[in-house]
């Protein structure tokens, strides 16, 4: 375990498109980041899934690196962030916001697989680094950001929030 009091900076910032696909068979959603100028939009089968293109929007991906010890946290498994406005008492994300108080803001970090069939989500190291990075840059005393992995949402499809995404005019299809 690192003893460094990390001072995170964004590194490997790259621009591209977040492509969202849906399975016609099981209704699962999947997403991937593409730096291609022409995005793949063809349907295809992958195991039991029949993926169909749903949407795409401009996005930016980045990693975090510690200025002090040089550790780099890869965030390839994070597809986006959402400010949670969920008030469902059965949702762990909503409970985090309630426990944190009025000046605590919970942001959900989305992974690529909405089903979480494999049990995987954004890595714990990634969540911790994101939380430390955003809080480390806040200058407003009393304000706090909690980053939570989307696997903590009661249901990604119904969890209320504001996705930080460039939808609409920046969509290329």
């Amino acid at each position, binding site marked *: 375990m690192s003893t460094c009091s990390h001072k995170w900076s*964004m590194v490997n*910032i790259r621009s591209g498109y977040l492509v969202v696909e849906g399975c016609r068979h099981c209704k699962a959603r999947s997403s991937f980041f593409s730096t291609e100028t022409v995005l793949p939009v063809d349907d295809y089968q992958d195991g039991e899934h029949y993926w169909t293109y749903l949407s795409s929007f*401009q*996005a*930016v991906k*980045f990693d975090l690196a510690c200025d002090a010890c040089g550790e780099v946290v890869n965030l390839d498994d994070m597809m986006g*962030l*959402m*400010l949670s406005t969920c008030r469902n008492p059965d949702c762990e994300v909503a409970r985090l916001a309630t426990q944190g108080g009025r000046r605590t*803001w919970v*942001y959900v970090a989305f992974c690529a697989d909405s089903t979480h069939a494999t049990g995987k989500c954004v890595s714990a190291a990634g969540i911790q680094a994101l939380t430390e990075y*955003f809080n480390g*840059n*806040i*200058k*407003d005393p009393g*304000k706090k*950001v909690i980053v939570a992995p989307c696997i903590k949402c009661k249901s990604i499809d119904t969890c209320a929030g*504001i*996705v*930080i*995404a*460039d*939808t*609409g005019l*920046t969509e290329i299809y």
Partner: protein
Amino acid sequence: MRVSELAEKTGLTSLNEHNDKQVEGVYISDMVSDIITGAKANGILVTLQTHKSLIAAANLVDVAAIVFVRGKKPADDVVELANKTGIGLFVTDMDTWSFATKLNEIGVK
């Protein structure tokens, strides 16, 4: 320079109650994904965007105030969210270039 002083010197119209923070820089962007990688805490964000996701992004990086150029005004629910965050919302009829020039003239960079 505080947000209120900047607003007065550049002729901005305020859209909400907000924290009067010390301004520490400026960022211009119309993409929310770009804002979270480029805007800084206590900075002024200049944009044409009025979508609610703009507030979600600006709040994450602790932006002090947002200036909507070309007279763009956000919807009530956007202002309501900004009120909860303490982010100041302002509007100007100037375009982005003219407003950026004005900021430069008063020493905000």
